[in-house]
Protein backbone atom coordinates (compact mmCIF):
# COMPACT_ATOMS: atom_id res chain seq x y z
CA UNK A 1 0.00 0.00 0.00
CA UNK A 2 1.22 3.42 -0.90
CA UNK A 3 1.54 6.01 1.84
CA UNK A 4 -1.15 8.00 0.13
CA UNK A 5 -3.24 5.19 -1.33
CA UNK A 6 -6.21 7.48 -1.93
CA UNK A 7 -4.21 9.93 -3.97
CA UNK A 8 -2.72 7.06 -5.94
CA UNK A 9 -6.16 5.66 -6.75
CA UNK A 10 -7.43 9.09 -7.69
CA UNK A 11 -4.59 9.73 -10.11
CA UNK A 12 -5.00 6.25 -11.61
CA UNK A 13 -8.65 7.01 -12.34
CA UNK A 14 -7.59 9.92 -14.52
CA UNK A 15 -4.55 8.18 -16.01
CA UNK A 16 -6.30 4.96 -16.96
CA UNK A 17 -9.02 6.74 -18.94
CA UNK A 18 -6.29 8.25 -21.09
CA UNK A 19 -4.27 5.06 -21.35
CA UNK A 20 -7.11 2.72 -22.30
CA UNK A 21 -8.84 5.14 -24.67
CA UNK A 22 -5.48 5.86 -26.28
CA UNK A 23 -4.95 2.13 -26.78
CA UNK A 24 -8.43 1.73 -28.23
CA UNK A 25 -8.00 4.59 -30.69
CA UNK A 26 -4.61 3.26 -31.76
CA UNK A 27 -6.48 0.25 -33.16
CA UNK A 28 -7.75 2.56 -35.91
CA UNK A 29 -4.23 3.24 -37.10
CA UNK A 30 -4.09 1.96 -40.67
CA UNK A 31 -7.83 1.24 -40.64
CA UNK A 32 -9.37 4.73 -40.63
CA UNK A 33 -12.17 5.43 -43.09
CA UNK A 34 -9.97 7.93 -44.95
CA UNK A 35 -6.29 8.71 -44.65
CA UNK A 36 -6.89 12.12 -43.05
CA UNK A 37 -9.09 10.65 -40.33
CA UNK A 38 -6.65 7.84 -39.77
CA UNK A 39 -3.99 10.40 -38.93
CA UNK A 40 -6.39 12.51 -36.86
CA UNK A 41 -7.34 9.56 -34.64
CA UNK A 42 -3.74 8.44 -34.31
CA UNK A 43 -2.83 11.98 -33.22
CA UNK A 44 -5.58 11.93 -30.63
CA UNK A 45 -4.46 8.51 -29.46
CA UNK A 46 -0.92 9.83 -29.00
CA UNK A 47 -2.28 12.81 -27.05
CA UNK A 48 -3.86 10.34 -24.64
CA UNK A 49 -0.67 8.29 -24.32
CA UNK A 50 1.24 11.45 -23.53
CA UNK A 51 -1.25 12.33 -20.81
CA UNK A 52 -1.21 8.80 -19.43
CA UNK A 53 2.56 8.81 -19.33
CA UNK A 54 2.66 12.04 -17.27
CA UNK A 55 0.02 10.85 -14.86
CA UNK A 56 1.41 7.35 -14.38
CA UNK A 57 4.80 8.82 -13.68
CA UNK A 58 3.20 10.92 -10.99
CA UNK A 59 1.29 7.89 -9.72
CA UNK A 60 4.54 5.94 -9.50
CA UNK A 61 6.04 8.73 -7.38
CA UNK A 62 3.05 8.62 -5.05
CA UNK A 63 3.23 4.84 -4.86
CA UNK A 64 6.86 4.95 -3.68
CA UNK A 65 7.38 1.33 -4.63
CA UNK A 66 10.27 1.94 -6.98
CA UNK A 67 8.10 1.44 -10.06
CA UNK A 68 8.01 3.68 -13.09
CA UNK A 69 5.16 4.67 -15.40
CA UNK A 70 5.82 1.75 -17.73
CA UNK A 71 5.47 -0.70 -14.88
CA UNK A 72 2.08 0.77 -13.99
CA UNK A 73 0.96 0.60 -17.60
CA UNK A 74 2.19 -2.87 -18.43
CA UNK A 75 2.27 -4.85 -15.20
CA UNK A 76 -1.08 -4.18 -13.62
CA UNK A 77 -3.94 -6.67 -14.01
CA UNK A 78 -7.41 -5.70 -15.17
CA UNK A 79 -8.84 -5.41 -11.66
CA UNK A 80 -6.17 -2.84 -10.88
CA UNK A 81 -7.30 -0.51 -13.65
CA UNK A 82 -9.52 2.42 -12.69
CA UNK A 83 -10.85 3.71 -16.03
CA UNK A 84 -14.48 4.38 -16.88
CA UNK A 85 -16.16 1.46 -18.62
CA UNK A 86 -16.97 3.61 -21.64
CA UNK A 87 -13.36 3.89 -22.78
CA UNK A 88 -12.73 0.14 -22.84
CA UNK A 89 -15.68 -0.72 -25.09
CA UNK A 90 -14.71 -2.03 -28.52
CA UNK A 91 -14.42 0.64 -31.21
CA UNK A 92 -17.43 -0.62 -33.17
CA UNK A 93 -17.98 1.29 -36.39
CA UNK A 94 -16.70 4.79 -36.96
CA UNK A 95 -19.93 6.29 -35.66
CA UNK A 96 -19.50 4.49 -32.34
CA UNK A 97 -15.89 5.60 -32.01
CA UNK A 98 -16.87 9.19 -32.79
CA UNK A 99 -19.88 9.16 -30.46
CA UNK A 100 -17.70 7.88 -27.62
CA UNK A 101 -15.06 10.52 -28.41
CA UNK A 102 -17.79 13.11 -28.29
CA UNK A 103 -19.39 12.06 -25.00
CA UNK A 104 -16.08 11.39 -23.31
CA UNK A 105 -14.23 14.48 -24.55
CA UNK A 106 -17.01 16.87 -23.59
CA UNK A 107 -16.94 15.34 -20.10
CA UNK A 108 -13.15 15.25 -19.95
CA UNK A 109 -12.86 18.90 -20.91
CA UNK A 110 -15.21 19.89 -18.09
CA UNK A 111 -13.31 17.66 -15.68
CA UNK A 112 -9.96 19.19 -16.65
CA UNK A 113 -11.39 22.69 -16.32
CA UNK A 114 -12.30 21.76 -12.77
CA UNK A 115 -8.86 20.29 -12.25
CA UNK A 116 -7.36 23.69 -13.07
CA UNK A 117 -8.38 24.68 -9.56
CA UNK A 118 -6.82 21.63 -7.94
CA UNK A 119 -4.85 22.07 -4.71
CA UNK A 120 -2.42 19.58 -6.20
CA UNK A 121 0.19 21.48 -8.17
CA UNK A 122 0.98 18.59 -10.50
CA UNK A 123 -2.65 17.98 -11.39
CA UNK A 124 -3.15 21.68 -11.97
CA UNK A 125 -0.28 21.79 -14.44
CA UNK A 126 -1.45 18.59 -16.05
CA UNK A 127 -4.91 20.04 -16.59
CA UNK A 128 -3.57 23.21 -18.13
CA UNK A 129 -1.41 21.33 -20.61
CA UNK A 130 -4.00 18.70 -21.49
CA UNK A 131 -6.91 21.07 -21.96
CA UNK A 132 -5.49 22.41 -25.19
CA UNK A 133 -5.43 18.89 -26.59
CA UNK A 134 -8.86 17.96 -25.34
CA UNK A 135 -10.50 21.10 -26.70
CA UNK A 136 -9.41 19.97 -30.13
CA UNK A 137 -10.72 16.46 -29.48
CA UNK A 138 -14.10 17.97 -28.63
CA UNK A 139 -14.14 19.98 -31.81
CA UNK A 140 -13.09 17.03 -33.94
CA UNK A 141 -15.75 14.75 -32.48
CA UNK A 142 -18.47 17.42 -32.51
CA UNK A 143 -17.90 18.15 -36.18
CA UNK A 144 -18.22 14.48 -37.02
CA UNK A 145 -21.36 14.01 -34.94
CA UNK A 146 -22.91 16.89 -36.88
CA UNK A 147 -21.75 15.51 -40.20
CA UNK A 148 -23.14 12.08 -39.42
CA UNK A 149 -26.40 13.27 -37.91
CA UNK A 150 -26.96 15.69 -40.76
CA UNK A 151 -25.38 13.49 -43.42
CA UNK A 152 -26.72 10.51 -45.31
CA UNK A 153 -29.44 8.15 -44.23
CA UNK A 154 -26.83 5.55 -43.36
CA UNK A 155 -24.58 7.90 -41.36
CA UNK A 156 -27.62 9.11 -39.43
CA UNK A 157 -28.80 5.60 -38.68
CA UNK A 158 -25.33 4.65 -37.45
CA UNK A 159 -24.80 7.66 -35.18
CA UNK A 160 -28.27 7.20 -33.65
CA UNK A 161 -27.42 3.56 -32.98
CA UNK A 162 -24.09 4.58 -31.43
CA UNK A 163 -25.83 7.05 -29.10
CA UNK A 164 -28.21 4.29 -28.02
CA UNK A 165 -25.39 1.80 -27.45
CA UNK A 166 -23.44 4.26 -25.31
CA UNK A 167 -26.31 5.61 -23.23
CA UNK A 168 -25.81 3.10 -20.41
CA UNK A 169 -22.16 4.07 -20.04
CA UNK A 170 -22.63 7.82 -19.68
CA UNK A 171 -23.92 8.01 -16.07
CA UNK A 172 -20.70 6.53 -14.68
CA UNK A 173 -18.91 9.73 -15.68
CA UNK A 174 -20.97 11.66 -13.15
CA UNK A 175 -20.86 9.25 -10.23
CA UNK A 176 -18.99 10.14 -7.07
CA UNK A 177 -18.06 7.44 -4.59
CA UNK A 178 -16.34 7.68 -1.25
CA UNK A 179 -12.93 8.20 -2.80
CA UNK A 180 -14.21 10.95 -5.07
CA UNK A 181 -15.81 12.72 -2.12
CA UNK A 182 -12.51 12.51 -0.24
CA UNK A 183 -10.75 13.97 -3.26
CA UNK A 184 -13.30 16.77 -3.57
CA UNK A 185 -12.98 17.59 0.15
CA UNK A 186 -9.23 17.81 -0.20
CA UNK A 187 -9.51 20.02 -3.26
CA UNK A 188 -7.81 17.57 -5.60
CA UNK A 189 -10.41 17.86 -8.30
CA UNK A 190 -13.96 18.82 -9.24
CA UNK A 191 -17.17 17.13 -8.15
CA UNK A 192 -18.11 15.04 -11.19
CA UNK A 193 -21.79 15.13 -10.28
CA UNK A 194 -21.71 18.89 -10.79
CA UNK A 195 -20.43 18.50 -14.33
CA UNK A 196 -23.60 16.91 -15.57
CA UNK A 197 -25.51 20.10 -16.25
CA UNK A 198 -22.75 21.66 -18.34
CA UNK A 199 -22.22 18.36 -20.11
CA UNK A 200 -25.86 18.16 -21.08
CA UNK A 201 -25.82 21.73 -22.28
CA UNK A 202 -22.72 21.24 -24.44
CA UNK A 203 -23.93 17.93 -25.84
CA UNK A 204 -27.38 19.35 -26.54
CA UNK A 205 -25.92 22.23 -28.55
CA UNK A 206 -24.18 19.80 -30.89
CA UNK A 207 -27.19 17.47 -31.02
CA UNK A 208 -29.41 20.35 -32.09
CA UNK A 209 -27.09 21.21 -34.92
CA UNK A 210 -26.86 17.54 -35.90
CA UNK A 211 -30.61 17.07 -35.72
CA UNK A 212 -30.16 14.30 -33.14
CA UNK A 213 -31.94 13.48 -29.91
CA UNK A 214 -29.88 13.60 -26.72
CA UNK A 215 -28.72 10.15 -25.61
CA UNK A 216 -31.30 8.50 -23.38
CA UNK A 217 -30.72 8.50 -19.63
CA UNK A 218 -29.35 4.99 -19.25
CA UNK A 219 -29.63 3.12 -15.98
CA UNK A 220 -25.91 3.30 -15.71
CA UNK A 221 -23.34 0.55 -16.00
CA UNK A 222 -20.64 1.26 -13.49
CA UNK A 223 -17.69 -0.35 -11.76
CA UNK A 224 -14.68 0.71 -13.78
CA UNK A 225 -13.54 3.19 -11.15
CA UNK A 226 -13.24 0.40 -8.59
CA UNK A 227 -11.71 -2.15 -10.92
CA UNK A 228 -14.85 -4.03 -11.96
CA UNK A 229 -14.55 -4.06 -15.71
CA UNK A 230 -16.28 -5.41 -18.76
CA UNK A 231 -14.89 -8.54 -20.38
CA UNK A 232 -13.21 -6.32 -22.98
CA UNK A 233 -10.50 -4.85 -20.79
CA UNK A 234 -8.64 -8.14 -20.43
CA UNK A 235 -8.28 -8.42 -24.18
CA UNK A 236 -7.00 -4.87 -24.45
CA UNK A 237 -4.39 -5.57 -21.79
CA UNK A 238 -3.42 -8.87 -23.37
CA UNK A 239 -2.43 -7.01 -26.50
CA UNK A 240 -1.05 -3.89 -24.84
CA UNK A 241 0.97 -5.66 -22.15
CA UNK A 242 2.08 -8.75 -24.02
CA UNK A 243 5.56 -7.59 -24.89
CA UNK A 244 6.49 -6.21 -21.49
CA UNK A 245 5.06 -9.28 -19.77
CA UNK A 246 6.97 -11.66 -22.04
CA UNK A 247 10.18 -9.62 -21.94
CA UNK A 248 10.10 -7.48 -18.78
CA UNK A 249 11.98 -4.21 -19.19
CA UNK A 250 12.50 -4.70 -22.92
CA UNK A 251 13.55 -1.51 -24.67
CA UNK A 252 13.94 -0.65 -28.35
Amino acid sequence: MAKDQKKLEYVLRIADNALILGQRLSEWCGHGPVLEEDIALSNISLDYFGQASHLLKYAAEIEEAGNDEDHLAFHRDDTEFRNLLMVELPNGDYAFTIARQFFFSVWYQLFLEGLLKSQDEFLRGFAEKSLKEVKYHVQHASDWVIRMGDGTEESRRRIIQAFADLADFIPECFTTDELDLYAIQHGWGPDASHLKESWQKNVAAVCTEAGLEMPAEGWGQRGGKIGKHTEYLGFILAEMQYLQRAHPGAKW
Partner: protein
Amino acid sequence: MSNKDWPLWEVFIRSKSGLAHKHVGSLHAADAKMAVENARDVYTRRMEGVSIWVVKSADIVASSPADKDFMFDPANDKVYRHPTFYEIPPEVGHM
Protein backbone atom coordinates in the same frame (compact mmCIF):
# COMPACT_ATOMS: atom_id res chain seq x y z
CA MET B 1 -17.19 6.69 -47.66
CA SER B 2 -14.63 7.16 -50.35
CA ASN B 3 -12.19 9.91 -51.14
CA LYS B 4 -13.57 10.20 -54.61
CA ASP B 5 -16.58 12.00 -53.14
CA TRP B 6 -14.40 14.61 -51.48
CA PRO B 7 -12.72 17.39 -53.39
CA LEU B 8 -8.98 17.86 -53.27
CA TRP B 9 -7.53 20.81 -51.36
CA GLU B 10 -4.11 22.40 -51.48
CA VAL B 11 -2.58 23.23 -48.14
CA PHE B 12 -0.39 26.21 -47.33
CA ILE B 13 1.36 26.54 -44.00
CA ARG B 14 3.06 29.52 -42.43
CA SER B 15 5.88 28.12 -40.36
CA LYS B 16 6.21 31.21 -38.18
CA SER B 17 4.93 34.74 -37.91
CA GLY B 18 6.38 37.04 -40.51
CA LEU B 19 7.06 34.34 -43.08
CA ALA B 20 4.82 33.67 -46.06
CA HIS B 21 2.52 30.69 -46.36
CA LYS B 22 4.17 27.89 -48.26
CA HIS B 23 2.59 25.08 -50.20
CA VAL B 24 3.10 21.83 -48.31
CA GLY B 25 0.83 19.35 -50.04
CA SER B 26 -2.76 18.40 -50.58
CA LEU B 27 -5.56 16.40 -48.97
CA HIS B 28 -9.19 15.40 -49.37
CA ALA B 29 -11.99 16.99 -47.37
CA ALA B 30 -15.72 17.47 -47.71
CA ASP B 31 -15.64 21.20 -47.06
CA ALA B 32 -13.39 24.07 -46.04
CA LYS B 33 -13.74 23.53 -42.31
CA MET B 34 -12.83 19.87 -42.57
CA ALA B 35 -9.96 20.79 -44.87
CA VAL B 36 -8.45 23.10 -42.24
CA GLU B 37 -8.84 20.47 -39.53
CA ASN B 38 -7.40 17.73 -41.68
CA ALA B 39 -4.53 20.00 -42.61
CA ARG B 40 -3.89 20.57 -38.93
CA ASP B 41 -3.73 16.83 -38.34
CA VAL B 42 -1.80 15.86 -41.43
CA TYR B 43 0.62 18.75 -41.87
CA THR B 44 1.22 20.44 -38.50
CA ARG B 45 1.60 17.50 -36.13
CA ARG B 46 5.32 18.13 -35.78
CA MET B 47 5.02 21.84 -35.02
CA GLU B 48 5.41 22.85 -38.65
CA GLY B 49 3.14 25.84 -38.51
CA VAL B 50 1.23 28.65 -36.89
CA SER B 51 -1.27 29.34 -39.66
CA ILE B 52 -3.04 27.29 -42.31
CA TRP B 53 -4.56 28.23 -45.65
CA VAL B 54 -6.51 25.75 -47.73
CA VAL B 55 -7.80 26.29 -51.21
CA LYS B 56 -9.68 23.94 -53.49
CA SER B 57 -7.24 22.51 -55.99
CA ALA B 58 -9.82 23.07 -58.71
CA ASP B 59 -9.73 26.82 -57.96
CA ILE B 60 -6.04 27.12 -58.70
CA VAL B 61 -5.27 28.44 -62.14
CA ALA B 62 -1.88 27.20 -63.27
CA SER B 63 0.38 27.96 -66.15
CA SER B 64 0.69 25.18 -68.64
CA PRO B 65 3.93 23.17 -68.68
CA ALA B 66 3.66 23.17 -72.48
CA ASP B 67 4.06 26.96 -72.48
CA LYS B 68 7.29 26.78 -70.55
CA ASP B 69 9.48 27.92 -73.42
CA PHE B 70 7.80 31.23 -74.16
CA MET B 71 6.64 31.84 -70.57
CA PHE B 72 9.95 31.49 -68.78
CA ASP B 73 12.87 31.09 -71.15
CA PRO B 74 12.91 34.74 -72.26
CA ALA B 75 13.88 35.78 -68.72
CA ASN B 76 17.04 33.71 -69.00
CA ASP B 77 19.25 36.35 -70.59
CA LYS B 78 17.87 39.42 -68.86
CA VAL B 79 20.55 39.69 -66.23
CA TYR B 80 19.93 43.42 -65.96
CA ARG B 81 16.65 42.62 -64.20
CA HIS B 82 18.65 41.55 -61.15
CA PRO B 83 19.70 44.34 -58.83
CA THR B 84 23.13 42.75 -58.61
CA PHE B 85 23.68 43.64 -62.27
CA TYR B 86 24.17 47.27 -61.28
CA GLU B 87 27.20 48.72 -59.66
CA ILE B 88 26.32 50.73 -56.62
CA PRO B 89 28.35 53.90 -56.08
CA PRO B 90 30.41 53.58 -52.89
CA GLU B 91 28.68 56.64 -51.38
CA VAL B 92 25.40 54.72 -51.30
CA GLY B 93 26.82 52.07 -49.01
CA HIS B 94 24.90 48.88 -48.37
CA MET B 95 21.44 48.70 -49.83
